[in-house]
């Protein structure tokens, strides 16, 4: 019961890291188990999101604002990745009208 009271009484850094880890793993599992190209990219965005939560939480813990500055760079990379990935998806989609990643297996050969 002491454990319960202490856990619900205050928020710890571990709670934020745990949440960010769970979100990251959900994104990872989604990336591996979905076959839709666009949803796979959405899952990478989810992983970026989880990393951002971890950065802000640790930055708050040490009162160091470079954590938040790094989130700005994460946003930059995510935006660039979204633009390029979606351009590639549009390019692929023009050749063969499918979003199924397994239909593009021949790209790896």
């Amino acid at each position: 019961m002491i454990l319960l009271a202490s856990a619900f009484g205050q928020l710890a850094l571990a709670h934020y890291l745990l949440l960010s880890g769970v979100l990251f793993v959900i994104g990872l599992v989604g990336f591996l188990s979905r076959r839709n190209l666009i949803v796979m990219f959405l899952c990478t965005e989810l992983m970026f999101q989880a990393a951002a939560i971890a950065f802000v939480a640790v930055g708050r813990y040490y009162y160091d604002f470079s954590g938040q500055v790094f989130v700005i760079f994460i946003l930059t990379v995510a935006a660039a990745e979204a633009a390029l990935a979606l351009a590639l998806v549009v390019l692929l989609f023009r050749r063969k009208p499918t979003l199924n990643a397994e239909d593009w297996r021949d790209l790896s050969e």
Partner: protein
Amino acid sequence: MDGILPYIECFAALVALYLILGRGGRMTKVLGILGGFAALAWMYVMAGTEIIGGEGVGREVLFLIFGAIAISAAVRMITHSRPVYSAINFVFVVLSSAGLFLLLEAEFMAFALVIVYAGAVLITYMFVLMLAQQASSPDKITEVPEYDRVAREPAAAVTVGFIFLSTIFGAVYQGIPSMPPPAGEIERNMVRAEVLQGLPKQLKSEVEKIDPSFQWPPDIDGNKNMVHADATGIFVLGTTEAGKHQPVRLPESAGPRNTQFVGWDLVARFPASLELAGVILLLAMFGAVILARRQIEHGEDELREAVGLTRIHDWDDDPAVTEEGSSA
């Protein structure tokens, strides 16, 4: 026994995710959802107790609400068979993590996240999704293709997830006490003083608000510091009507706000990274334009050849057009 407890929790959480992902019926999924929340609640209770982000009764409740929304929307995102709904669920994840950023006193990042992610990136995804779905099956738009309905190798994916989550959670569970301690009051006030030092106009107006008789500029010590910090707050020293070297304490409201902290760090500590971020965005824009553009021209040429047409008049190479500006 205590050492393997976090791994058991991770295993329970990932088994729940497998039940939600797999081909089982409604009952299996409900069981997975309940089991997943139970495992997460267990993890929440087990997590450490270093306080972060101030105190207050509402914080845990808000954290639980935002965390529950984020995790359930994320699970719904990877399990929903329609990609558009996945994107909408991702918007919920973004909004609830913006709420978590507000709890962590990162107001600027919270709003930047909503504007950039929910406002710009997700709209791009939506556009491409609509474009792709419309073209793939115009006659049977309501039918969800097989590759969206059935998960690919959920067992392997969940195994990878379990390895990853148990690594993270094991490290968090065992490693937090060995981490350096969090910033104390003095360190916090030193950061505040350093940033406020760089904002002389705001510093002057705040000092004059508190003590109108303060004679600007304040005293400067050997390290050229105007603002000083101790365990109780930040202050400036200077001449007031009470005499020389009088401290004027600045309240929390006078200190730099979150946006000023972030801006100061961004410009003063990472200027080269800021420039690089601009270059990355510019190159991404070039790349996207070039990738999307070239293919349109290919497609048009192939279409012309397919219906037996050739280019009648090449306007780019016509000397009449380039010389006279306009030609019929």
